[in-house]
């Protein structure tokens, strides 16, 4: 949608679930960004490819012959010292931002636990490594990530107990781990209000409508449970109003539905993001 406004956008999926490709209606994404619609490119993060690119770009080491031994070594390093994986993932994204290959890089991040580790990886590494290439590398990445004009975190949450609790915790953990800007929170999948209270009250007078009354009560309960969660979130974030998106009607494609609702929000973000 930002692409429709003439911005060059890169969308990146961090975990290899492949659902981004499904939403965008394109073949499975690769590390190499592919244009999925005018101005919009998409990629899937892969730390091994990121390492190759890193070696090529920054170390300017000639890579002769097969990379297999390197890949094997890398596998062990990455599993033993997990910081490597995280830094490679976040590093690739920061690189694209720094090189200004795109006006906006949107990251569909991993679940909240992994996300904190990824986004704070440059800070964590910087405390371990004080000199050398890595040290210089982490510095510019941290600078990009900490600059609220450049980077912001948008938390998307559904109106349920667990996700709301996790989001509240996410912000606390983020604040502890790294000074990245927390741009806002978006409540997705709000149940639609479909129950007319007067009608429901009238229906209670007729025993033959018992099932319908139950159905109505159920919808009302779902909705009020969701509202309770919105309220919890608003209180925790000290927001008067939490941006919400209604549950998608069955006949509308999901990205289109969300896009329709997001125009305003992204406008705001993109003005500070680019």
């Amino acid at each position: 949608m930002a692409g429709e406004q003439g911005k060059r956008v890169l969308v990146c999926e961090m975990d290899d679930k492949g659902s981004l490709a499904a939403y965008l209606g394109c073949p499975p994404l690769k590390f190499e960004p592919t244009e999925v619609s005018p101005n919009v490119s998409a990629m899937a993060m892969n730390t091994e490819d990121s390492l190759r690119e890193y070696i090529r770009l920054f170390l300017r080491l000639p890579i002769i012959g097969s990379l297999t031994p390197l890949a094997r070594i890398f596998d062990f390093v990455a599993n033993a010292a997990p910081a490597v994986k995280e830094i490679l993932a976040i590093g690739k994204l920061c690189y694209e931002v720094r090189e200004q290959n795109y006006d906006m890089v949107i990251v569909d991040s991993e679940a909240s636990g992994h996300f904190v580790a990824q986004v704070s990886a440059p800070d964590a590494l910087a405390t371990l490594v004080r000199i050398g290439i890595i040290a210089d590398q982490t510095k510019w990445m941290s600078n990009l990530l900490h600059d609220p004009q450049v980077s912001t975190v948008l938390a998307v949450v559904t109106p349920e107990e667990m996700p709301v609790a996790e989001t509240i915790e996410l912000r606390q953990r983020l604040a502890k781990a790294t000074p990245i800007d927390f741009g806002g929170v978006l409540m997705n999948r709000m149940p639609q209000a479909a129950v007319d209270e007067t009608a429901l009250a009238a229906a209670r007078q007729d025993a033959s409508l018992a099932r319908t009354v139950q159905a109505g009560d159920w919808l009302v309960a779902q909705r009020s449970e969701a509202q309770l969660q919105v309220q919890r979130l608003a209180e925790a974030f000290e927001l008067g109003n939490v941006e919400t998106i209604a549950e998608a009607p069955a006949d509308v494609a999901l990205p289109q539905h969300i896009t329709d609702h997001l125009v305003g929000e992204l406008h705001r973000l993109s003005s500070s993001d680019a």
Partner: protein
Amino acid sequence: MNSAAFDAGHVDDRVMALVRDSRMIIVSGPGGVGKTTSAAALGVLAARHFSKRVLVLTVDPARRLATALGLDALGNAEVPVHLADAQGSLTMAMIDTKASWDDMVRRHAPDSATRERVLANDLYKTLTSRFVHSHDYVVTERLYDARETGNYDLVIVDTPPSRSALSVLDAPQRMEQFFSSRLLKLLTAPTQSRLLSIASRPFFLVADRILGAAFLSDIAEFFTLFRTMEGPIVSRARRVGALLADPATAYVVVTSAESVAMAEAHYLVDELRRRQHRLEVVLANRLMPTHLADGASVRATAVSGHADSRVHALAKAEHAIAQVAERQAGALAEMDSWGTDVVLSESRSGEITDVGALLAMGEALTLRQPGILSPRNTVAP
């Protein structure tokens, strides 16, 4: 109501058999589908109806669930949960990564000097507290511990969401591979022999440039210390791996009927099978109650033509119900095609705030279920 139905014997015994016969149940699934709650409900069910000592190990319980179970702000400690009329007993514990690693180092360090040096090593501290992947191995250590002590007859593990569950399952093997890897030998080789070894030279050229010599020697120190624990850790990792593949270890995948969650659950089902783990049931959670789903469109028509025109507006609600019901039926049919028993769990009104609600949820899983899905024979291990 559930207890009454339960006592009346309307029981579908798949879930009862699961908690009765397993010694370990590993609950996985996408995030936000009620995985932790389901694990807790299975634990309450087992402790209530069987004379078993049950431990539920959870990675990250929702705060209110934790409070309901008396799990407020604890680290690695195991907390008994009071359960009325229970034949067995129930204990809950959370897994704290850093504390678990420290425990492991204390247990395996060959002497107190090594132990203190590992615990004080900067790299160790950062790895264990800041990087999430370090969590995976200690989870398996914890569940092995729980089984090994003989304090529990059934251990139920609530794994981290989605694919992270698989990293947990693969962690023991990775740990073993790590100790036997050439990399570790390279990293811990004395500096002189590094320079002499032509084979390792390209590696160090790259590593030096990327990481810097100082960091490299930090790494070397850490891994040299770590290697002193190789023997006990590797043999343990092997036993943990064997435990995960044990026929008395059952796997449950929890999902909602929502499409993104289902795609993830399907992937987990396939991966568990590929690893030849004993996948027992897929738990379809957060479903709309069947008594509402059935006949919603018929009711919508009836409401629109009702004599009292005030109720006509409710047709919209019934249409909404019918729409959810239709989506849900499609989702369930798809789950049924995954080739594992599917157990249905309706979304419950209100939050689960006490043990009683967890028991009700657990018992509801054992009630004879509406005939959407045909029970099939348990998938062979």
